[in-house]
Structure formats: structure tokens, C-alpha cells
């Protein structure tokens, strides 16, 4: 179902005077309610507290907020209008390449945009290398898997979509066995629930015990173990879009300011994307980061 909603950025009196910037969001990630709930009536540009008031992952929402704040700080004061687009896959950038889409409100894995760098403006990393951590979520009733120690992870099977290149790379650099599955995210979770596989890599969920409750079934991460997704994430702006260049410039500028102010990290931490509960957990693929330093 195609769902479109508009969000007007209301700034004093000049709101109606400027045409809106249309930024795409993915229609299959329908989170308008959660977005509204997160804002809770607050002005998006004045948000300094990113603390989540709901369970689950809030990365998409935080990115949407950061994007708007960055554009504004970079001088792009036009209101932002979000447009939900039914993309076949989030690795296809046709609209961005062609310039029919200005930009996407989500950050992209750098790896996915490599071949299109010539057609895209790529922002500085929003999520830096090593920042993106995921848990190995197992079914809450799979006690055996939950009790595995770091040294026993070679016994663990993890479902992964090979199209998620970064996830794939992360997994093959761990001792775990990757079970590839190309299909909907929900079905992969169902595989975990049905014990077809032991685990799935999922962003740490905000909430008690980091548990993820999906359609009444509880999933929980294996304690003291986390995986780093070995790539950076960036906002991309179409080079072929007429507003592309100025928006990209504003974005780069604004992101720098946000970074300097520590807003980005604060946002990730408060929202639970950078989860303090797992701060001291062991990174299974630590070697992929260590070598960088």
C-alpha cells in the first residue's frame, strides 16, 4: 500500500513562503506513527534529547531528524517534505542517479553506493566505521544458544541476506556459520523463531534486557557478544537533481556542525543505537576494526 505523508517543518512565519524539499523515505519502512510518537509534538530542529520513549530501534527516525537539522544548519532552510517510495531494494539508486529523487532520508552503506559515486554526492560518514553494532538475536526460548560463550560461537548458525553486503562481510569474518536467505526480514525472524537457524543479526533494541518483541514472540540477544558491521554509512544526494548540489553542500556543512557539536553521537547514544548496555560486550569480529587503528 502506498502511503504518503507530508511533514511540514514549521518555522515562525516564513513556512508557507518556501517550496518544500522533497526527500524520499522507503514506503516499506512505514514509521510515520513512530516518527510522530518520537517527536511527541516537539519541533524537529529544536530536538536535543533523543531519548526514545518507545521500544525497538529508532535509527531511521534519528537519521531523519539529524538530516533535517544538518540541512538547516548547512543553510538549507526550506521545509522538508518526506515522500514514501516503494523501492524494490535499498541498493538500487535509479531515481537518485537519474535525478528524479533528490535524496533519501536514510543513510546508505558506503559499499552499496561505490559504483554510483560518480552520480551521487556522498556525505561524510554519519555512522563511522565500527559504530554500527548488532546483536545476535535468538529466540527467547532457545536457552542453549543463549548460553553460548564467545569461544563456542562456531556452533552458532546465523541467517543473513547475502544482498546485505555489509552484514555478509561481518558474518564471514566471525566464527559463526552464515546461513544465507534472500527474502523478507520478517521471514528471517520467523526462521529464528522456528529454530531453523539459531540467530539473526539485529540492531540492539531499546528496552529491558534489549529484548525484541515481534508479533508476540520474544527474541533476545546472546549476552556479552556483539558484531560490528564493517562499513560507514552516509547520506547521498543525487548529482543529477537540480537541487542536488546545493542540498549536498548544505548537508556536508550541516553534518560537520552537528559532528562538532557532538549531536550525532549524542543522538545515537540517547536513542539507543549506540547502546550503553552493550558497551563492554565483546566484538566477535574485533579484528576488522583493530587493524584500522
Amino acid at each position, binding site marked *: 500500500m502506498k502511503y504518503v505523508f507530508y511533514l511540514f517543518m514549521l518555522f515562525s512565519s516564513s513556512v508557507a513562503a518556501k517550496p518544500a524539499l522533497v526527500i524520499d523515505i522507503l514506503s516499506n519502512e512505514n514509521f510515520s506513527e513512530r516518527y510522530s510518537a518520537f517527536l511527541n509534538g516537539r519541533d524537529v530542529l529544536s530536538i536535543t534529547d533523543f531519548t526514545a520513549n518507545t521500544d525497538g530501534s529508532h535509527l531511521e527516525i534519528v537519521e531523519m531528524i539529524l538530516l533535517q537539522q544538518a540541512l538547516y544548519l548547512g543553510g538549507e532552510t526550506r521545509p522538508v517534505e518526506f515522500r514514501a517510495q516503494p523501492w524494490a531494494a535499498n541498493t538500487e539508486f535509479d531515481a537518485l542517479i*537519474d535525478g528524479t529523487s533528490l535524496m533519501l532520508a536514510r543513510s546508505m552503506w558506503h559499499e552499496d553506493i561505490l*559504483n554510483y559515486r560518480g*552520480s551521487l554526492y556522498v556525505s561524510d560518514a554519519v555512522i563511522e566505521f565500527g559504530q554500527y553494532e548488532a546483536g545476535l538475536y535468538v529466540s527467547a526460548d532457545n536457552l542453549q544458544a543463549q548460553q553460548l560463550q564467545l569461544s563456542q560461537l562456531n556452533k552458532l548458525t546465523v541467517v543473513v541476506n547475502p544482498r546485505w553486503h555489509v552484514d*555478509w562481510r561481518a558474518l564471514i569474518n566471525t566464527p559463526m556459520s552464515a546461513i544465507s536467505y534472500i527474502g523478507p526480514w520478517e521471514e528471517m525472524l520467523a526462521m529464528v523463531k522456528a529454530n531453523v537457524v539459531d540467530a539473526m543479526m539485529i540492531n540492539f533494541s531499546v528496552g529491558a534486557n534489549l529484548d525484541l518483541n515481534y508479533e508476540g514472540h520474544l527474541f533476545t540477544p546472546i549476552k556479552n557478544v556483539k558484531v560490528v558491521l*564493517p562499513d560507514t554509512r552516509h547520506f547521498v544526494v543525487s548529482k543529477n537533481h537540480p537541487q542536488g548540489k546545493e542540498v549536498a553542500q548544505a548537508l556536508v556543512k550541516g553534518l560537520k556542525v552537528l559532528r562538532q557539536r557532538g549531536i550525532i553521537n549524542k543522538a545515537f547514544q540517547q536513542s539507543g543505537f549506540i547502546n550503553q548496555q552493550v558497551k563492554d560486550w565483546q566484538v566477535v569480529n574485533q*579484528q576488522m576494526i583493530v587493524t584500522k587503528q
Partner: protein
Amino acid sequence: MINFQSIFLFVLLMYGGELFANSTAQDKQQLEHYYTKFKADIDADNMLHVMSYIHQLRQLAVSQQALEIEVESYLFEAMVKRRYGAFEEGVKLNNYALELAQSAGNKKYTAWAYLHLAHLEMELERFRLAQQYIHHAIDYYKSDNSEYTTLMYLWQSKIYLAMGSYHQALAASNKAQSVTANIGDTMYEVAVNHAQILLKLGDYQAAQTMLANVDPTQISKSQERVRLQYYLALANCYLQAGNFKLAIHTALSQLANSYNTRFLEEQAQLQFLVASAYRQQKEFKLAYRYLNRYSLSKDALSLQRRNNKVLQLEAHFKFDSQNQQLLLLSKDNALKEQRLLQQQQTIENHHLQQQRWLLAGILIMCGLAFIYWRWQNQRYLVTLKQQVAERTHALAKSNELLKTMSYTDSLTGLHNRHYFFSVINQQLAKLARANHLLPPAQLQNLVFAVVDIDHFKQINDSHGHGAGDLVLEQFSKILQQHSRDSDLLIRWGGEEFLLVMDNLTFNEAAHTLNRVRNAVADHQFTLNHDESLQCTCSVGFASYPFIAAMPELFNWEQVIELADGALYLAKENQRNAWVGIAPSTEKTHWQSDDVVKHYRKYLLAGELQSYSNITAKLKF
């Protein structure tokens, strides 16, 4: 394929010379011939041709114990097999090479075998194993700081790149570049690899700088795969920079060059790159064409990869199952050995037990034998003792007999002089004891009387010795009849007898002797043939102690001599008479020798007194 040819060449050049040292001339020559050919073919990338004689080369190497060549031959064959997709064989041969090098303790070749295995495992996408293998190889070459050090790090970097761990790949690549001894193709390869990593990280400017270090004229001379990768990286730089035309141009030229070659992976990447570039140029038809080609290449690659994976699984399965079988066999062997050992132990124990029993048996037998021996011995001893006792008894008897015989005169049955000598001292001692406590008036004495048959010689002469003997026998009987048991009657010699009488006074003795004399004179001596005769005897006697007050003054010999003297007197004066000599005075000083010698003088002097049955005055 990386510059394995040149690597082989280096290795062969390094070791070639030494390897032939111990070979026999002809075989050595042949091996050398094949080896030279081998090197030349590798150099000329004539891999499949080498396969036609690789076995001969290996055989020669084996026969001449040129281990390095043997290992090389395995590594080479494995490489060819792997290159053409025969992964199972590749795994096997590489493992042979590794085992050979390891068993020979050749660390260099072990490192090379690990490198080959790492390459193989990387192609089979078993990255963790590949990393382990390359790590071994790096361990050996780490401090070498040679082109091979670079090569090992390069391969580590390649494996990391294939694994998608770009920062690790970059670090390994930096290490490869930091080796000072870099020369030739490896250097270019390192640069290309480094650029590939940078491109994965989106740093196309740095990648371009890196590629600028590579001389295009040199790269055209190097291996095809390296060349392809160089241009692919270059095209990627252009693509990421948005220079689509140049990207397409670069990629297309390489696609044309590599058409119908085995570098399918690089072709697919080039095709996708071209499609991307065309797509971004909005050349959709062309983009579609190349995307289609890419899709075909990728399909083929997928098939190949799938096949490889199956083969890999099979190869590993076979290798594993072989290993498992070997393990099982070795376990089985160990078990058997253990059993054998146990059996041996049991047998040994049994033997030991047997030996113990045997020993115990022997000991018991020995004990029994000893006891038996002791028993026998005892018995024998007893018998012996008995015998000894018997013999002793017999001996005693015979001694007695002998004694008796030696003390007895065979003719008369009387004691002889020997007997007398043996008992006289006892008699005297007895006398001395008896006299010891008696008063002088009651002192006892012994009377020594010498009795001699008168004219015995005449009897012998006229009647023969037989008659003489008869006379002697009968004479001695008379003497016996007239003597008491306590008296000693001795055949003193010839026809002379000695009669020692105790407890008799001088007179009583004279009386007894007179009776003897009469009995003899009265006796009718019977001879043979009913003859008979008469004869007389003379007796001389003296008493011991000769002087009662001084028993020690005259010993018994002297007393006998005096008795003998008296006998002479009897004979000289009459015959058939008895004469006794006794001291007549109370003289206390006697010269016993002189008295015995000159008794006649003492008789004449009256110091001695004679007693006789001769009525006439005795002549001295």
C-alpha cells in the same frame, strides 16, 4: 594467476644448483635436462605442456632424493589442477607437498606449500583456513625481508580483501609495501591490490595515485591476470570519479583483450563496471547489453563456483574421511598394539608364573632331595656308625685277641714277657698303694721267682723239639696248678718261667716253690708214642721290694736279675732245687747295681743271704 611462474623460477634458480650434488652422472644429467625444461616452460606460461613430463621429472627427483624438486613438482601439479578446477586433486597434491616438505624439515618449502594451500583455500572461499595457512608462510618469511616476504603479505592482503575485511587487507598490503627488497612484478601486483582495497573503501583518489606508480609499459608485459586487475582498478577509479567515458573505454579495451580467456571473474567485473557506467550515462541499451553479459558471466561463475564448492566439499570430505580413516586405522593399530602388548604381557606373566612354579618345583625338589639326602646320609651315617662300631668292636676284639695273642705264649698258653711288661707297673703301683698306709711289719711284697727246667736241651736233643714242646706244655700246667689266680705266671723265655706272687712272705714263697719243684720232679711227662720222661726244675727267687724299708732302692728288673742269680746258684749247686736271695743285714746304703752285678760277692760277704732247699752249703 599471480606470477607463480617467476616465483618458481626464482626458487628454482636458488636451489637448482645444490640439488644435483649427490646424483649419479647420467641420472643427474637427465634430471637437469627435465628441470631446465620445467623452468623454461613455467617461464613461458606453458603449464599444460609441463604436465606431460612432470611425472618423469618427479620420478627422477625421487630416485635422486632431490626432495625440493619433488615438492616443487607436486606444488606445480597442484597449481595446474587447481587452475583448471580440479580442486580435489589440488587439495591432495598440495597436502602431499606439505607433508613431504614437513617430513624433510624443509621450512622454506613448507612455507611455499602453505602459500599454495592458502591460495587454494581462498579460491574455495574457505578464508579462515586460508588465513591460517598464509600465516604459517608469513611466519617463515617475516624476517627474510625479501620479495617472498612481500609475496606472503600480498597474499594475506588478498585473502583479507576476499573476506571483505578491508582494513586488515590494507594493513597487510602496507606490510607488503614496507618490505625494502621489492622488485619486479610483485611490486606491481602489490600496487594493484592496494588500489583495489582503496577502491573498496571508496578512496579512488588514493587508488589512482597508487596505480600511477605502476608503469603501463611494464604492466603490459606482466601476467594477464595482473594486467586485467590493473585496468579494472583503473576503470573503477574513473567510475567512482564519475569519469564514465574513460571508465567505459578502459574497461572495454580490456574486455576485448580478455575475450575468450579464462579470467571470467575479471571479465564479469569489467562488464558490470561498463554496465554501471553506461547506466549512469543513461545509455540504457548498452547498459542492458553489458548487464546481460555480466549476468551470463556471473551465471557461469556461479556454476563454476557451485561446482567448485561441491568439489571442495568432496575434496575435503574425502581428505577428512581419509584422515579419519587413517586416524581410525592408527587408533585401531594402537588398540591392536595394546592388545598385543597385553597378550605379550599375559604370556610373559604366564611364563613368569610357569618359571615361578618351575622354580618352586625345583626348590621343593631340591628340598626333598636334600631332605632325602640328609635322611640317606643320616641312615648311611647310622649304618656307618654301626659299621664303625661293629668294626671298632671287631677291631677291639681282634685287638684283644691280638693283645691276648701277643701277650700269650702260643705253646703253653701262659702270658709272655710282653704281658708281664705291660702289667708289672700296675702291679707295683697297686702294691705301692697297698703298702702306703700299712705299718712296716705288715708291708706286703711281691716274690719274683724264675723257674727253669733242668737239662731241657738234652730233652730236645734226645727226644726232639716236639717232645720239648710237650714237656713245656705240661710243665706250664703244673706251674698253673700250683699258682693262684692273683699270681702272674709268665713264660719268660725258652724253658724259663717267671712266677710273680703277691701276699706271700719269703718263706711262704719258698714253700710254694718247693711244692712246684716237687710236683715237677714227680710228674711223668708224657711224650708221643706213649713215651714219658721225668725232669726237674730249678727255681731262683727274690722279693720286691728287695729291701722292705726302701722299696725304690731296687727296681723290679734288678729283683728279677737277683732271682735269676739265685736260679744260677740253684743250678750250679744241685739242680732240682730252689734258691732265694734276700738282704741279710740292716744295711741302709746299697749300691743296687753293684749288688745285682756282684750278688755272689755280697752273698759271700753275708750282706745278702740265700735260702734254699739244698741242704749242702751253697757255693757262690
